[in-house]
């Protein structure tokens, strides 16, 4: 070992130490804690002695109809929101990826919801979803259907509550992904389109054979991020529906927080947290595999 290396060693550790300490204390440690606590009977501020209960909490939550419903809701949410939001984002990106006057304004408008905290968006949409003919959305629907629409209490209807939250989420998230798609679109060389035009491709064919394949990795990224976000769903549920009606909008994270924070059942909440992490892990591994497969082929 020579001096250069030794110096690098010291300086390297010094530079990385603050971040590594932070990650260890505030991600690593809680993560381990989640694993350990999920095997105990811990309740916040309970005077009972700590005992290990093995897999009891896992066994229970996996039989708990509410938690299972929450899992199903997350899944439903992902199945609907991922394609819709990705599609909307791509569509918006294609629309604003043109050189027309005023395009910057449109782009800004589509992007605007992204800078709104979900908490605020949820509050605003709660009002928009107001039941009865005075609710804005109800009255718009009434107008559009020439009065055939029967006013609904969206957030208290077990069939409409989850879709209502989906709409809010798509509305908020599409702008973000539009930008990601825009970046992807602008990475595609103009020459490819010129070549395609010379080969006689029309606009649709250009999209299908040039644009879409070139956006493969972007799409994979957008899809996987949206999928994971779908499973992280919490703010809207907490504010708009509290998981109801009939648990139609309960989510895994909401259930974990409800158990740990509202009912002080830290151990049960931790077990849910671990299940949540395993889902995210699987999704991530799947996405990574897709991307690396693409790299091998490409």
């Amino acid at each position, binding site marked *: 070992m*020579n*001096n*250069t*290396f030794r*110096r690098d060693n010291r300086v390297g550790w010094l530079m990385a130490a603050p971040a590594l300490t932070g990650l260890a204390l505030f991600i690593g440690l809680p993560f381990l804690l989640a694993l350990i606590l999920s095997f105990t009977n811990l309740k916040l501020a309970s005077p009972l002695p700590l005992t290990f209960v093995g897999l009891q909490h896992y066994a229970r939550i996996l039989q708990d109809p509410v938690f299972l419903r929450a899992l199903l809701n997350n899944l439903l949410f992902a199945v609907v929101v991922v394609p819709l939001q990705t599609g909307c984002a791509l569509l918006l990106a294609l629309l604003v990826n043109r050189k027309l006057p005023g395009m910057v304004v449109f782009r800004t408008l589509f992007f605007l919801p992204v800078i709104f905290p979900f908490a605020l968006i949820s509050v605003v949409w709660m009002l928009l979803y107001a039941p009865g003919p005075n609710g804005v959305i109800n009255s718009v629907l009434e107008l559009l259907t020439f009065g055939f629409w029967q006013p609904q209490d969206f957030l208290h209807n077990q069939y409409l509550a989850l879709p209502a939250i989906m709409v809010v989420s798509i509305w908020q998230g599409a702008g973000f992904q539009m930008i990601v798609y825009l970046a992807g679109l602008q990475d595609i060389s103009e020459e490819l389109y010129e070549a395609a035009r010379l080969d006689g491709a029309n606009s649709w064919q250009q999209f299908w054979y040039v644009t879409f394949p070139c956006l493969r990795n972007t799409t994979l990224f957008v899809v996987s991020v949206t999928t994971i976000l779908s499973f992280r769903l919490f703010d809207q549920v907490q504010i708009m529906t509290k998981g109801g009606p009939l648990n139609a909008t309960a989510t895994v994270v909401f259930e974990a927080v409800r158990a740990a924070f509202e009912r002080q059942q830290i151990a049960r909440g931790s077990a849910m947290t671990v299940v949540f992490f395993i889902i995210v892990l699987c999704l991530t591994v799947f996405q990574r595999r897709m991307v690396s497969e693409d790299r091998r082929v490409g």
Partner: protein
Amino acid sequence: MADVTIKELVKSYDKKHLILDHINLEIKDGELMVFVGPSGCGKSTLLRTIAGLESITDGEISISNRRVNNLPPQQRNIAMVFQNYALYPHMSVRDNMSFPLRMQKMPAQEITQQVETVAEQLDITRLLDKKPKQLSGGQRQRVAMGRALVRQPEVFLMDEPLSNLDAKLRVQIRSEIATIQRQLGVTTVYVTHDQVEAMTLGQRVAVLKDGILQQVAPPDELYSRPANVFVAQFIGSPGMNIIPCRISGDELVLPLEKEPVCWPLPEEMRAGLEHLSRDEDIWLGLRPEAFRLSAQGQESSLSLPCQVLDAEFLGYDTLLRFQLTAPFKTALNIGEQTFTARIFQQLNCAVGENITLNVDVRTACFFDQSGTAV
């Protein structure tokens, strides 16, 4: 001023595969030494070990008899010009050139003065307040030179400094570099993959291949007496033609199976080849210039029947690519191997035409089975 001595230098990342394989080299004070070789040969790595940017596994590097193995770059009193110039993009030319001096804690006034002196020398005074982005390739190159010169280093290291310039500018700056180097007399190590650059610029040239030093010699010696087949083929454009042969007494024999063709060797060459054992298979190396177009009907014993594959007229000379025709082709078992001749006249040969070329054997080189010159 300083000399650079490299002894038994070994560089390896994994202890098995050697990037630099026991290099021994002495660069004399004030000399312009060029490292040349194909990409991946280790020439840049060698330069960077001298700079201190790469650690070494074994051996020793000293500058002015001072062992520098473990010294960080800034303590080696060297300056370096990088392939992409590595000008700090956020600083003006003046700040770029001042940077090394400021690192030495030189008083501001002296810095200004020295920067301006060097700028004048390189004719870049009017560029001093510009940012690198605003400069042309040639100007950037000059600024990079300036930044290296300004600190008056003992050794000047240049890593392919011209490779990002167009051909014409490259020639111009190449000669400028040579001039400045001569004026200042700074020991300079110059890395290039371009053998023409190496030949024109280097006072001595070190040829590397696979981390092994092949030959260190002045350009003319490198050309006329390459140490091995690799150097012979790497130096010169196009490289040397290599043909299998045998020496039999006073004669050069092309060992054909049915009917060996023999040429008598000129007197002056015989002495150098005497130690070869009779009938040993060796290699004959012929520069493209060694071929002459034989006049019609004036066949000498050193002539070769050839078939033209292609003739490129370059304005002054013609590069003639050819194959040896039968019986050589089959008998020598050298298949479709092609050779190149440089003929100093305009030639109008049709492709496929059979012609005869004479060979000036006096400039020929001989290599043994392992490829080493004999």
